[in-house]
């Protein structure tokens, strides 16, 4: 990807497992598709069809290679497996700013992460589909600025203060979750917070950059599967070096076979 090619000198590079969570159809996969391929598909199939996608994020001092895991639809009937959360260093919990129930669901996922994931996991709460609101589409409204909410409330006379989410104004603003409600919750729980549009691209790269910046240097290691709390080397008998690479067999012994 060109983004990484622009870095001249090699920087320290580390892999980060990032998991996606959120109600179906809030745009989890679309956010990733925008980030990874800078692409958007209007009527995408529910799942992404990939084990995971990777994308580099170049910071001033280091390069983070995100390994982005999609739910593959396993969240639909409460069937995400513990292995999904295993050693994840970051999570993107997505809701739809036009659908209040999706924020409720997002809160549920945050609680689930706090229960199941590694203690140091970086969690970003992301309100997607900003393009359907009056603040959307407009790339200048870039960051997670709470003032955007009050401005739009002021501009739009059809909205009555805080309860804006209860009505669908004639101007076409479909927002039903106020920025303030979500950002207050994010602050309470210590989450990063962004409102994005995967369709237009608003804030998408920013979310991933913010996550990359928030991951503590100490938890970064190079190579796959790193970062698990239990794997930190404490002495010479480290399991880290002792992992067996199954891929070796494919090359070395081919299919000459089972001796039994």
């Amino acid at each position: 990807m060109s983004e990484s090619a622009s870095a001249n000198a090699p920087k320290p590079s580390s892999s980060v497992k990032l998991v996606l969570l959120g109600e179906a159809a809030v745009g989890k996969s679309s956010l990733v598709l925008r980030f990874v391929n800078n692409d958007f598909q209007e009527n995408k199939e529910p799942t992404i069809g990939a084990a995971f996608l990777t994308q580099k994020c170049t910071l001033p001092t280091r390069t983070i290679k995100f390994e982005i895991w999609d739910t593959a639809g396993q969240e639909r009937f409460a069937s995400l497996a513990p292995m999904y959360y295993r050693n994840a260093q970051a999570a993107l919990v997505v809701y739809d700013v036009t659908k209040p129930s999706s924020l409720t669901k997002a809160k549920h996922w945050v609680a689930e992460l706090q229960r199941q994931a590694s203690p140091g996991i970086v969690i970003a709460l992301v309100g997607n589909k900003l393009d359907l609101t009056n603040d959307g589409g407009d790339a200048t409204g870039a960051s997670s600025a709470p003032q955007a909410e009050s401005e739009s409330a002021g501009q739009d006379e059809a909205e009555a203060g805080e309860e804006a989410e209860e009505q669908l104004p004639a101007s076409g603003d479909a927002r039903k979750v106020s920025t303030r409600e979500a950002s207050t919750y994010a602050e309470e729980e210590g989450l990063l917070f962004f409102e994005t549009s995967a369709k237009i691209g608003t804030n998408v790269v920013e979310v991933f950059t913010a996550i990359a910046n928030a991951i503590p240097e100490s938890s970064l290691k190079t190579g796959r599967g790193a970062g698990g709390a239990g794997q930190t080397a404490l002495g010479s008998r480290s399991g880290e070096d002792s992992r067996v690479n199954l891929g070796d067999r494919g090359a070395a012994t081919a299919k000459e076979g089972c001796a039994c």
Partner: protein
Amino acid sequence: MESLSEHPWDVIIAGTGLDQSLLALALSRSGKKVLHLDQNSYYGGSEAAFSLDEASEWMNSVNQHPGRTPFEDAKIITHQDSSESAPSKADSNTSERTQGTPDVRPKLAASRAYTLSLSPYFLYTRSELISILISSKVYRQLEFMAVGSWWIHSPEHPNADSLELGATRLFHRVPGNREDVFADSNISMKSKRTLMRFLRHISKPQDGEEQDEAEENKDLSMPFADYLSSNFSVPQDLQNPLLSLSLSQLPQRDTSASYAVPRIKRHLASIGALGPGFGAVVSKYGGGSEILQVGCRASAVGGAVYALDTGIQSITDGEVSAESEHPVEVCLSDGETVRTRVLIGSAWDLPSLEQPPCTKVARSITVASSTFTSLFPVTAEGAPVPASTVLMFPGETLGSPQSPPVYLQVHSSDTGDCPRQQSIIYGSVALSGPEGHTLLERAVDRLLQAEGPQAIALWSMRYNQLGRLSNSGTPPTIQTHSPHVFRFPPPSLDLAFEDQTVDMIKQAWVNIVGDEVAHDEFMIFEDREGTSDD
């Protein structure tokens, strides 16, 4: 939440054990609409892995709902509260700390620091399962650690090779190749020669010796012990070590040569296939549980739909007709009714099917406050530090000569099953009830005592498990209940993954996909990892 009954399914698979999960993966990637259910709120069924809290919930559920799963009589013992189990003698290193702090007794870590497997098993390095994990690209999401040495409990003859204190004093390392035999100072020269002859015999290639084959087969029908004595004059004290390489769960006299010899061959031929010094690997974080979860995820990526906590209440099996290509009507535990062309599951997941005949074994899981470092030697140059080891206690060493052997698998913290400074001891003996549990307890106590006073049990769980021993010699097969309803065999109780399982899954896949897919494409998938680097 969406509904599962919106459209009919090609296949409904009930239960998320490894067999079912691999079948789901194969079918979902062959364009089948797969619904994969589990009556439990966790993946894995009898192969599940648990945190301490989850284990406790599981125990309650097993005892409250007998017959719902292939387990019974589960019991957890938390040893922490007994103050007399504190280490009596502290070594110089810890005594310093003892003065300042009131309590340095080893403690259990947080519940989630543990991943305890109900049916721990390892994979030989040439296993067909490894082949399909590679060809399906699923292995990239798994981490494997080496299984190191095999040990035989030998309380009568302390280990001459053991230079350090620790568990190895009362265990002899089983020689796994000729170099080991040479180096072993516990074996007399005469015995070494007989052992070498046997090892040479079974390692030689079988081709071009048809005339010997008939004779060889005749020999193999006798008990393994007789086979070793009469053909190779292997002395008795070396017969148990060889038996342990076969992982036979029956006593020596009940284990036939036709069972043991091919399995010892498998053991010897596996060493080195994935790197020097080991012949088997274990998946991190609860063994098979992690493999099947990765399989289910890959299956979901292929389009299969997953629903946990969803059991099957009743089945109405109809006929394929012009009106319906989905003759099986399945009523789910949430009241929903779904239709499918094929239904397949284990006897515990499908109601009103007759229970298959099962063997019952006693199993235990112990969290120990020691690393058992001496049991995990690196035995070849460049070999990885093993994370798992196998200990065999012949019945006579536990004061019960008629009993089958007890096997303990010790997992170091490198398996991810437990925190550092602790280990998990998985015990198994093909003898159920109090008798079996007494033997297991005795074996675990012996190991802890041999290791030293700092080694104590912090937590343990025991249970009986129903399933299938591989000793019977009949390969696992899927039972046909009707043209559309099939039943998986009871779960394997083997300590190593049974390779015939892969053939069974492939056969089931062939039966379902028919001629729509080329059969040599079984479990061979394109990469589904979207890499944007190019």
